[in-house]
């Protein structure tokens, strides 16, 4: 498999990060989750796991696609769009 630095891909886009995250997790549900598919379905690698197996969100990189919400089997993600005028702004689309 080829190595891709997702940061390089995301650097092609314009992001206007809001102060507050538009994505929130119910960590309680995540702790009991075996699939942890948020880690590998997200096209922006927003979800990562630390050594304590806790899931972290880097909401600033979110492409607002919706995949994580549909994929999460435990409804652990409180998913929203960023506040108006924030988030990714595409020029080609």
């Amino acid at each position, binding site marked *: 498999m080829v190595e891709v630095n997702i940061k390089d891909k995301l650097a092609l886009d314009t992001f206007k990060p809001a102060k507050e995250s538009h994505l929130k997790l119910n960590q309680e549900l995540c702790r009991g989750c075996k699939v942890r598919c948020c880690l590998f379905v997200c*096209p922006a690698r927003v979800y990562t796991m630390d050594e304590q197996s806790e899931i972290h969100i880097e909401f600033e990189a979110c492409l607002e696609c919706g995949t994580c919400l549909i994929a999460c089997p435990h409804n652990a993600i409180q998913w929203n769009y960023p506040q108006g*005028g924030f988030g990714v*702004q*595409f020029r*080609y*689309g």
Partner: protein
Amino acid sequence: MTKVTSIVVGAGLAGLSAAYSLARDSIDVLVVERGDYPGAKNITGGRMYFLPIRSLFPELWDEAPWERHIVREVLTGVSKCSSLSIEFSNQKYNNKPYHSFTILGSRFNKWFAQKVAEKGARVINKYKVDDLILDNGKVKGIVVGGAQIEADVVIAADGTMSQIAEKAGLRGKREPQDFALGVKEVIALSPQTIEGRFRLKADEGIAQLFVGSLTKGMLGAGFLYTNRDCISLGLVLGIKDLTDCHLNVMPYELLEEFKLRPEIVPLINGGESVEYSAHVLSESGIKGMPKLFGDGILVAGDAAGMAMNMGLTVRGMEFAIASGALAAEAVRMAKKQNDFSAGALSKYQDLLKESFVWKDLNTFRHAPDVLANPRLFGEYPQLACTMMEKLMTVGEEPKKKLSTTISKELRSRLALSLLRDSFRFWRM
């Protein structure tokens, strides 16, 4: 509190089409879009089939920012190290009215929104509609930026992840098998380079679909569209397979592998990647549609699940434009009676049922089941490539008769399932 006749949530193709139609009929309309500008959040493939929507706004299309009209269709099956393409070109595709065009969502919607504003609609950017004003289940307006705006009717044109339809109680939870993730890169190349590499004249374009090992057995496909001065290259991956999948591969890694395939490298060589995007698409067609109307509310475009993979054609844009226009028509009729109840607005569904939107979605209602067949994305492209390799390669051993090679391949592999699946595909 401010009050308007109609509010459109979202300046995508569906919302802009609704707003244009309303403004043209001199109906007061406010469009609210959360992006910095219309187009800032609109991801598409994309190719739009023109003929179904041609008669809707004939005055607009001549000046639309079409990228290229498609003159050639290519279907490519890929295995790990080989590929087999079927190319179809049609002289008729070069005659006006053109059959289909490539577009870029941001460029197109920026232009479309300008036309909508010229017709007299108000388009507000940078505001997200946070909530609906509900009164006993009746939609009475929107909550935006902390303010309330009342309206006789709200048109939810807020895309596949529509929260407005949810808030109105019109749609339930989304299931992974009904959706796919699209990841896409836009690669800039000069128009001359594109025309040279793809054997095109000015304004001509191609659409190419890839199936096979590039999705590693997952339901999905690759696409390539030529635009005026760039190429849209991407993958569509079924979310269920992506979720079940323990390949330990990220969507962007699959996209990168696709870009590195020998079929793609010479086409994009020297090009500069200028955008990376992702968006979910509805894949379930008519079965996945939410309720389309309620008291004071209508749902149009992707928000209403009106997008579909029909095997060799991906469609959503014409459905969005047509459903937006029909929603506007239903509003016009409701305004005449001054009745915006669900009963009056149900006319929208009647109009849809008479249109190509419903008819096409209904005709292809079994497509999702037929396409949810892993053999289509794994074994068959592989089989086609293997067979071609055996037919084309001359090695040290004496070559077998063609009939022997073909029948051996078919027997040793999946002859029966191929027959059965071909029949199902045929009937789809």
